[in-house]
């Protein structure tokens, strides 16, 4: 093969061999003999590449981009003969300092490459950084090759998905996890057999992009413990995985470790969805640090007030300017990268309503970014899930622009089901909608039930066990006088606040947890479980544990023994959902297809009671097209008294069998699939106080 004409240097600068680079791809890319560096800025006058040896406090070189190395607004240059494994790089940009017009260039700051694929500086989780570092978050050059073998996105239909929302560190940081490398991607891989045994087929990871766990780090005035940014909803870099989540972070191999973990999850039939935070960055407001965007192109990257201050629709100091064409391109590049290089199956967009605001912050009708993502070919098989609200007051559950591609975290499902669970009056009509995949929200737009990601708990708020153990949040340890976190929890402590001696109260709590799991897993739409709820995990009433890198947040695996019955119940309910397709149908049953029908019942068959004082509802699924599929009858009695539910007749020659009944002690609370127990009385079923029951029809 002959050598390329462009694989040798044309310029020299202080001993470095250089030539004009390629503007795309952006970032640092290995090319024959060297590294191609490309970065853009609309308003910068000039740019320097700054090179450090790994971990060294001072740079060993600063190489200007020559005039002929610039194309449009892009600075692009190849540097030959770099020991790329052992360097870190950044940029210094010169340009106007005019905050009132949006410019904040400062040529003394060394800036992270917005397209850095690996970032050094926080290589080991929680290791105290050198606070005098002039360049704390350092771009690194990385091999992007990986041996994926035959791996590809799993493309599990949305209908069949059971999502498990998980925080990489919390999942295994506790010593009880017995993980070899606790709190890491590697440990997630170790726990794959557990995830398989639970039966979920998708993990949704809280942010795994590089963030700074030391951002706003402080000592808790209550416990004296160091508070960290544990959740990571504050991006330093959008293209790089969190090094501190990798056991190999100290070796700079976080990219390989995450890819290996994804490959192994895929091999086990588990999809990977990433929680992505494009609404703001870790640079905060005017007082915040220069990490990258502020010094590279402040006016393009951020939404600014006419006076040049930062809009704060995110509640985190700044707002990324998502519908600026430059930022839009970066977000698209980023998601395409995660899909093509990491085989990611989907994304959940934090405070996604911000992505639909224009450059002045006003909500748009057809937001270009959301439309672009909906139709992008590389994202074509990706699941796109919106947290359909923001901190600026926009609430779009049921109205988020979808193009039949976007699903939503259904906040109304959470709120209504919680109120039903605790026995509020007047909620049954809403619950009927929620159980059916919220047709009131989605059917009128011809969307499917899977537009609704159903959840009762998520990382944000109480865990399931805390939902039934606390009336009020207990966030004192966060050091904000318990002012942080939601006050609107629709929770009920079952008779005593917090830990209680074993007895009636704890029994009721466990029953309530099972009731909630039953509702979630028989509802149409896509269910999402919060990691740990399957073993009754508690955060001691903290409903906003974003900063608690300790036992409050870490999953205690000994709970699997303590709450074996909750684990078994969850696992069996998931298996039941997987077994019976009618529970997973993505079309609305009444009006679209006649092959499956839902009928509503109450203490009297065929007579649901949706009146204000009603606290119970029952329903039956019957598939008319498939005679071999059973009918499924679910009774939800959230009233404090027991009630006899008159049963509708099962299909011809079939009899009602009990699959689950939360009022009964284990092991009879739930059966194995296929081992359901025939009912003696086929006319009426007694459902205990605050209990749920699931029956199926079978021939004898």
């Amino acid at each position, binding site marked *: 093969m002959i050598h390329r004409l462009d694989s040798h240097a044309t310029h020299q600068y202080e001993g470095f061999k250089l030539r004009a680079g390629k503007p795309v791809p952006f970032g640092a890319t290995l090319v024959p003999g060297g590294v191609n560096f490309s970065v853009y800025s609309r308003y910068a006058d000039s740019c320097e590449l700054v090179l450090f040896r790994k971990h060294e406090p001072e740079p060993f070189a600063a190489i200007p981009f020559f005039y002929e190395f610039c194309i449009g607004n892009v600075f692009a240059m190849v540097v030959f003969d770099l*020991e*790329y*494994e*052992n360097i870190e790089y950044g940029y210094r940009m010169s340009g106007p300092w005019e905050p009132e017009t949006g410019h904040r260039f400062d040529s003394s700051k060394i800036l992270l490459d917005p397209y850095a694929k690996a970032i050094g500086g926080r290589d080991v989780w929680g290791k105290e950084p050198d606070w005098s570092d002039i360049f704390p978050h350092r771009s690194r050059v990385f*091999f992007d*090759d990986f*041996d994926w073998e035959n791996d590809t996105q799993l493309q599990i239909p949305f209908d069949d998905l059971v999502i498990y929302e998980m925080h990489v560190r919390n999942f295994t940081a506790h010593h009880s996890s017995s993980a*070899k*490398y606790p709190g*890491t991607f*590697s440990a997630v*891989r170790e726990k794959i057999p557990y995830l398989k045994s639970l039966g979920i087929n998708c993990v949704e990871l809280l942010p795994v992009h590089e963030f700074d766990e030391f951002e706003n780090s402080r000592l808790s005035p209550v416990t004296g413990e160091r508070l960290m940014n544990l959740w990571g909803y504050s991006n330093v870099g959008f293209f790089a995985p969190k090094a501190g989540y*990798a*056991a*190999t972070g100290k*070796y*700079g*191999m976080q990219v*390989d*470790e995450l890819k*290996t*973990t994804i*490959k*192994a999850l895929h091999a086990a039939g588990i999809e990977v969805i990433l929680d992505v935070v494009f609404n703001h960055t870790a640079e905060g407001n005017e007082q915040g640090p220069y990490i990258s965007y502020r010094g590279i192109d402040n006016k393009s990257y951020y939404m600014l007030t006419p006076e040049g201050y930062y809009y704060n629709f995110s509640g985190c100091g700044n707002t990324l300017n998502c519908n600026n064409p430059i930022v839009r391109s970066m977000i698209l590049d980023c998601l395409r990268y995660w899909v093509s290089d990491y085989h990611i199956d989907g994304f959940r967009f934090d405070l996604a309503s911000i992505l639909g605001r224009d450059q002045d912050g006003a909500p748009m009708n057809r937001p270009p970014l959301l439309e672009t993502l909906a139709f992008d070919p590389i994202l074509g098989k990706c699941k796109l899930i919106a947290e359909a609200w923001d901190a600026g007051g926009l609430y779009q559950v049921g109205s988020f622009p979808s193009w039949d591609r976007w699903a939503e975290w259904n906040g109304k499902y959470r709120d209504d089901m919680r109120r039903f669970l605790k026995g509020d009056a007047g909620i049954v009509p809403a619950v009927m909608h929620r159980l059916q995949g919220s047709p009131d929200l989605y059917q009128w737009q011809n969307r499917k039930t899977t537009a609704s990601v159903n959840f009762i708990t998520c990382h944000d708020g109480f865990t399931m066990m805390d939902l039934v153990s606390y009336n009020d949040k207990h966030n004192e340890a966060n050091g904000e006088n318990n002012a942080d976190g939601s006050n609107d929890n629709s929770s009920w402590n079952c008779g005593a606040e917090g830990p209680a001696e074993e007895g009636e109260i704890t029994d009721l709590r466990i029953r309530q947890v099972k009731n909630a799991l039953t509702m979630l897993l028989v509802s149409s739409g896509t269910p999402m479980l919060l990691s740990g709820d399957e073993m009754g995990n508690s955060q001691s009433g903290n409903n906003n544990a974003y900063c608690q890198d300790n036992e409050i947040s870490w999953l205690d695996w000994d709970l699997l023994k303590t709450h074996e019955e909750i684990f078994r119940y969850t696992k069996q309910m998931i298996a039941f959902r997987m077994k019976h397709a009618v529970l997973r149908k993505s079309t609305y049953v009444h009006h679209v297809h006649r092959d499956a029908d839902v009928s509503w019942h109450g203490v009297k068959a065929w007579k649901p009671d949706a009146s204000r004082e009603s606290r119970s509802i029952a329903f039956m699924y019957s598939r008319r097209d498939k005679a071999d599929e059973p009918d499924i009858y679910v009774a939800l009695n959230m009233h404090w008294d027991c009630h006899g539910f008159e049963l509708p007749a099962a299909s011809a020659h079939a009899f009602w069998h009990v699959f689950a009944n939360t009022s009964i002690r284990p092991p009879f609370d739930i059966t194995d699939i296929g081992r359901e127990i025939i009912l003696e009385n086929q006319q009426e079923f007694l459902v205990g106080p605050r209990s749920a029951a699931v029956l199926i029809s079978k021939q004898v």
Partner: protein
Amino acid sequence: MELQLQMELVDGTAKILLGGKLDATNAPAFQEELKKLIGQDVTKIVFFSENLEYIASAGLRVMIFAKQRIGINAQVYLVGAQKPVLDVIKMSGLDTFMTIQETYNP
């Protein structure tokens, strides 16, 4: 520290003796050596690594390359590796294609 490398092919078994550091500076030369094995009916690739002090991602990539290109059905052994080397390989999960042994036992 330079990479020390010796390689011999006996009855379909490629025995590769590694010492020193294997990183981006010497991985290309290592890869060139391994390329000589392509098409030679190799059934076993054995990396004797007692004296290997350090391996970086570039070095690991060459081992994966060996698996892919020398013989997709060949068995790959990593023998006698020291803890720092083993740690990188196990933590990153890149050990799934190789048999790790303290002493060579085919």
